[in-house]
């Protein structure tokens, strides 16, 4: 696989960043995942974190180095994340289950597959035009579908934050699955949260990223979007993948996965965390286990020190 990848999350003007995003790849398969946690206190962050980690963990268990059934993997992971949030709330006797949106995309053998729950989005652009996208599980999207409001009215609508499907909700999530979509070199896959798409229409995203090296244009786009968010600006996050070898940049920016060993993974989890520890979130799950083991030993040492 050859691709160029960018990911970034910005807090906007909020106190905490409840967005989580990550990508991981084996030699043959790439996974992208974005989650936008909802609710007060730490609930939203925890929910988004759990969902993203669950995707990464399952991927590393099953992509050896390809997934047998990518769409099933996406559906199962969504359901598992939903269940995990329920049991997490149970375990800590939380009054309210932590909830999150989630959009995830797999690329394998030059085909893309994606799934989503809630209003975090995926756009697929080819030569500057939109050839695929997710449809929000939101009240406003429903109103658009019914012809009650126009698509341009979504952003300012009073109910724009109401979504009817999420992970961790009272009812099982509605999970939308894409078709198996063939990719061509130069195609752009964009995953983002509402903090981005509500201030940056998809035509503008397409324009900003087409014909430019994405590692240059994406950070500019994010900065601009945060400014547009203004004093009330929401968290905003984006993963961009340009499929195939990068032909626009002066420097080589293409990730070539053939150098990975069999059974090896490369993972990047978002670096802009607020609540949880930076270290633990940057590293993969095995690292997390290491940290936990050390914490446990240190606690034991303290307990038995007399």
């Amino acid at each position, binding site marked *: 696989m050859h691709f160029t990848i960018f990911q970034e999350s910005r807090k906007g003007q909020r106190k905490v960043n409840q967005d989580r995003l990550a990508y991981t790849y084996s030699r043959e398969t790439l996974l992208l995942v974005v989650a936008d946690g909802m609710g007060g206190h730490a609930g939203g962050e925890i929910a988004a974190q759990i969902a993203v980690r669950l995707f990464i963990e399952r991927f590393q268990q099953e992509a050896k180095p390809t997934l047998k059934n990518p769409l099933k993997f996406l559906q199962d992971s969504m359901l598992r994340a939903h269940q995990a949030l329920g049991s997490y709330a149970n375990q800590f006797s939380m009054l309210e289950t932590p909830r999150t949106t989630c959009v995830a995309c797999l690329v394998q053998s030059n085909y893309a597959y994606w799934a989503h729950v809630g209003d975090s989005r995926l756009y697929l652009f080819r030569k500057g035009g939109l050839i695929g996208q997710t449809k929000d599980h939101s009240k406003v999207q429903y109103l658009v579908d019914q012809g009650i409001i126009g698509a341009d009215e979504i952003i300012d609508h009073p109910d724009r934050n109401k979504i009817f499907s999420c992970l961790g909700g009272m009812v099982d999530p509605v999970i939308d699955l894409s078709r198996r979509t063939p990719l061509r070199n130069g195609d752009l896959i964009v995953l983002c949260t509402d903090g981005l798409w509500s201030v940056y229409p998809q035509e503008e995203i397409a324009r900003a990223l087409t014909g430019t090296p994405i590692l240059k244009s994406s950070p500019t786009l994010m900065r601009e979007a945060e400014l547009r968010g203004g004093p009330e600006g929401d968290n905003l996050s984006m993963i961009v993948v340009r499929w195939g070898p990068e032909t626009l940049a002066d420097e080589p920016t293409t990730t070539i996965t053939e150098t*990975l*060993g*069999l*059974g*090896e993974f490369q993972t990047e989890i978002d670096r802009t965390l607020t609540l949880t520890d930076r270290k633990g979130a940057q590293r993969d799950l*095995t690292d997390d286990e*290491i*940290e936990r*083991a*050390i914490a*446990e*030993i*240190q606690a*034991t*040492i303290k307990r*038995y*020190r*007399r």
Partner: protein
Amino acid sequence: MGVTNQALPSGYQLLNYRIDRQISRGGFSIVYRAFDDSGGPVAIKEYLPSSLVLRTEGDIVRASTAENLTSFRYGMKCFFEEGRALAKINHPNVVRVLNFFRANETVYMVMRYERGRTLQQQIQMRQDQVSERLVRHVFMHLLNGLRDVHTHKLLHLDIKPANVYLRTDGSPVLLDFGAARQTLTNTRPKLAPMYTPGFAAPEQYREPDRLGPWTDVYGIGASMFACLAAFAPQAADARLSEDHLVSAKKIWAGGYSDNLLEVIDWCLRLDPLERPQSVFALQKAIRDIPPRKRKLTFLDTLKKKLFSEVV
């Protein structure tokens, strides 16, 4: 392989510890002497499995291949086991863990620094025979520590003179719990067994299900034997096929008290059920040894005669 892992250089600042020098190097780790913030000495054990060659320069530990990384992480679990095991134990005759942390992409265990030498060195350095008094003193204290280890549902599983440290005041410290597993609980040991020929009990080779306090008791017996002989007893797996081990009682008759020799032979029985079943039982047997030689009564003489004829 001609490449070996590079030790951290003298003066290297590892968190709030300053490395002084390398003390020892094992298959899975390097032990350094270091100084903490207040200038006090500590021993720091760095997890660095030599078979994986992970550091040829600098300080960061890197696995050279994906397979190595997997093995590296797997071995790290054993290192954690050791840390977990020791963290719970606060006994004067068991090495004390002071801190545990992660750095340089590997993990470190900080232990209390002890001055002295290993029992192994002590044995090798002695010109004449090790005195019964020394053996008794060392093992009675060591068994106190081991009893505490067993109370915490842990087995040491690698008891040998090289893992017993003698402080300058003569008190022993049980070291290196790298092989320790929580085998007194229901979970079976899943990690690859590690044993030292001569000191490992026969069940460590063949029947990992049968590990118990009696397994460490075998190691104690073998270590006592080594104190007297200055070499290890025949390896248990070899003994199982052809037992050439001559009983301590035969070798050192007259040199040491019968009772001490009997205890050594008792600990070295091949059948786990025939050994002392607990450290307490073993301590009791050693305590029962009359501290000084008493004159033989007529009855004793008669008994002895009868016994020697039967045997």
